[in-house]
């Protein structure tokens, strides 16, 4: 009988331990993926960085879409559809177009940023507003911004709207940032930027500062990189040396901000040294480099847009930190915006 009681005690203990073990099992590993919006194909490429052969292209639909950028949070990505005046919501786990949310007529939606698992902001350059979008319910609310807002960065609990200051699609003067408090959805400040205007690309640097590219005219070598303090709401510095048409930015976890350029290839700014280490004339030779992304391991994905016609695929050139190409991943036609995201398991 005593032995039976001992056995029962052991059984209870083992059962409890097993239960505890089940309860505390580690969550499945998320999948890190490269997202690239293929502009003229109107698709979103989802490329698992550890298994590029499992890449898929999600068709974004619409009537006359002109998508050029993407943002992501968790299992969701949103792609503003430009002339379609809408935003496409993509489920990154199911790899499907989940829904399309209308934006105000004539919005011309371009840039976007996602705050959390329900809220995103989308820039409406034709309306000089941004839309706060609940991408779960489809509700939208408009907030005034500056002239021709075309990019958004979310940092330090604030929405930074990149006001390109384009009039009839040409730079009309320097750009600025409109700062919006997402808790009140009100503009609380603006930050003047040095340079030629046409600010459209930004990223949060490894040093916690905001890096914004003022592209200027695509046909002049006047692009300047602004460094902005997202807490003090001031421009700290402005750097030239990026040649013609600098565009998409991405930062690694160390000290680099990468700058893509259709004309110059991939360029590099050192955030520690505060200098352009690979600028115009010295960019990494990436043909028609339209975007750049960096994954959690520091691997660089320099996007080559290709001919943008005929179904000719774009390419993600996979580079190590020494810019040695390790692989080339085919994308859709004309990729022009890219980032990496951790997609939670189902």
């Amino acid at each position, binding site marked *: 009988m005593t032995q039976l009681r001992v056995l029962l005690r052991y059984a209870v203990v083992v059962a409890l331990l097993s239960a505890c073990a089940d309860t505390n099992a580690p969550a499945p590993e998320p999948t890190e993926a490269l997202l690239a919006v*293929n*502009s*003229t*194909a*109107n*698709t979103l490429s989802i490329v698992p960085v550890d298994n590029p052969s499992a890449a898929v*292209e999600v*068709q*974004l*639909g*619409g*009537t*006359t*879409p*002109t998508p*050029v950028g993407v943002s992501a949070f968790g299992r969701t990505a949103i792609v503003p*559809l*430009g*002339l*379609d*005046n*809408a935003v496409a919501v993509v489920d990154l786990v199911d790899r499907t177009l989940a829904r*399309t*949310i*209308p*934006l105000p*007529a*004539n919005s*011309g939606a371009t840039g976007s940023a996602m705050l959390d698992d329900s809220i995103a902001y989308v820039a409406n350059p*034709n309306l000089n507003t941004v839309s706060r979008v609940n991408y779960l319910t489809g509700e939208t609310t408009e907030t005034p911004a500056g002239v021709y807002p075309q990019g958004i960065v979310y940092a330090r609990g604030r929405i930074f709207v990149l006001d390109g200051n384009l*009039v*009839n*699609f*040409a730079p009309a003067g320097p750009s600025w940032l409109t700062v919006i408090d997402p808790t009140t959805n009100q503009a609380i400040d603006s930050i003047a930027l040095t340079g030629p205007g046409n600010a459209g690309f930004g990223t949060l640097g490894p040093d916690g500062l905001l890096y914004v590219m003022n592209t200027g005219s*695509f046909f002049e070598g006047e692009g300047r990189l602004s460094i902005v303090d997202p807490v003090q709401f001031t421009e700290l510095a402005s750097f030239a040396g990026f040649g013609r048409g600098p565009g998409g930015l991405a930062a690694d976890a160390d000290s680099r901000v990468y700058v893509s350029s*259709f004309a110059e290839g991939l360029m590099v700014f050192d955030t520690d040294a505060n200098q352009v280490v690979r600028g115009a004339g010295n960019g990494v030779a990436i043909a*028609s480099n*339209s975007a750049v992304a960096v994954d959690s391991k520091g691997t660089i994905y320099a996007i080559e*847009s290709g001919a*943008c*016609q*005929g*179904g*000719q695929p774009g390419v993600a050139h996979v580079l190590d930190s020494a810019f040695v190409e390790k692989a080339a991943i085919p994308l*859709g*036609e*004309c*990729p*022009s915006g890219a980032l990496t995201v951790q997609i939670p398991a189902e």
Partner: protein
Amino acid sequence: MSPRVALLALLVWLPAPLRAQAPSRILGRVVDATTGAPLATAEVRLSDRLATTSSDGAFVLGSVPPGRATLSVRRLGYAPWSDVLDVVPGLDRTVTVELAPLPLQLDSLTVVATPGAVSMTREELEARGGDLGHALDGWEGVAVRRTGSGGPASPQLRGGGPDEVLVLVDGFAVNDPFTGRADLGRISSREVDRVTLLPGAQTVRAGARAVAGVIVVDTRRPIRPDGAAWVANHGARGFRVGASMGPIGVTASTERYADRFPYSVPEVRGGGEGSRLNAGGDLYALTARLDGPVELSLRASQSDRGLPGTTTNPTLAARAHDRSVLLGARGTAGLRWSGSLQWIETRAEDTSPPTGLPYDSYTHGLGGTADVGRRTAVGVGAWTGDGGIALEGRADRFAGDGVREGASFSHAALRLDASLHRGSTTVWTLSPAVRLDVWTGQTTPLASARLDAGWQRGRTAVTAAVGSAVTPPVLADLLFREGVGVRLNPDLRPERVRWEAEAGLRQEFDKATVSARLFYGRVGDMVVWAPDFRFIWSPRNFDVLRRGGEISLGYRPGRTIRADGSATYSAVTYDIDAGSQVQYRPRVTYAIAVLWSPEPWAVDLRWHRIGERFPNGAGTNPRAAFSLLDIGVERRLGDALSARVQLTDVTDARAEFIAGYPTPGRTLTATLNFRLP
């Protein structure tokens, strides 16, 4: 009385009605009225009997019933001929038919009959109703691209673009000299006597723009006083009148386009049904022709229409005002010559565009063509026929807000061609042609050539062709003024069909006709507008592979009913690995037309399906295929009047050939036609 004598007596004294059952024959010969040269491959028809002339121009129609019958003869390049014959019972009748040359001027050159040509006559055109945009849509692979109610109805063939089909009316190109596109919507079906289609790369004979084919339109002559008035829902209505006075023929028309028609609002704009605004407008058109040793032709039009924008970015204030005048002359005094002048002007304005600044753009231009050539009879062994040499020139100059400074262009070409035939019961045809082109910016002559061959025996015809083609980019691609979102391409190259081969078979039965054609070729440097990664658009060159086929079936079970069907397949893909279909080129089309005409009624039913199209060159996000069903009922009201009711797009498909530009859906049109005897 011996049995033979008895039989002879019986035959001589047979009652007349019984003797009248004896078969008769009509034997004849068809010749060129000016040269006397025999004409092969002419179509000779008497009631339901059909014959084709042999290489010596001869034909025989057997088993002809006695009585009065109309003998008609036609051949490409000549005016149709017809006459009423008294067929005497049991006796052969011999006729000689002289066909008056009616050179078909292709662009500025003369074209001879080619074995692969197909035609549609006035009866079928009238049954199809409306304008040529509607009448030809779906016929033999023609896909008409429309962008709304008043926009141009431009034909596409074999996966080519709307600026790759040359349309000739009475010998003169009606393609817009700036955009290169023709608008079939401005040609009434009732003013046309015959439409001939020459599919494939035809620039060698036809000149610029004929990369995918040529549509040759012959208007009626003389014009009996006739006209039509019609009214439709969505606000459309129109009136047309025409008449001849001696050698002068005139037609005039006016039309109001549909406005405020219902359309399906895109989901991103809220979905449901809306009213398409700013889609209407007015068109006024005048044509005049003077027949004679020197033939004069005038076509003038003026339109004012709304530009409603896409369904996602509609605009209420954009308008387009267009005027065009085409004046042509041609003659055959010794040399065959022709010339034309064409004036166009266009104003586009929007005081409150959805994006960008208000604009008001005015552009005008003047173009002229001249050509001179000579044709002569040629013979090589058993082959006989004719050959020709021609020089052509063209010059255009544009000015205004829509073009860059110094927007002028000139083009010259030299062409040699021949058309040879041999055989009588079995007719062989051979039509070689070569061409040299030079133009502004292209001073090294570009050569192209084409060879058409045909074989015909009885009711079976086989055709084959191989050739190349070259055409300069349209002036709208070369000369436009750079602006927001558009950039010139200084490296834009001419479009070339490097080679293309095709083969066809046509078989006639007692009550049916079947024809099939296959084609395969490589197009180098096809010009397609495409965006870069910033969505700045430019005309660009792409190598393209095009192949496919067309099959047609005609069925005539009786005098009052006829049915026609066709199916086409045109794969036009970028010439790269896994290249996708070129944008807005439907890969498949189907068409069925049924006409039932128990006098005094006529009922026609047309079904047309356009396969999916891709809005981009990546082969993604396809636009759904659509089908259109039209039903028309017409009744004669005496000798001069007829009334017609037509229900277009019965299923209310509201087709969008181009994304964002819906056409009016279900439309009821009532038409009153008159034609004086």
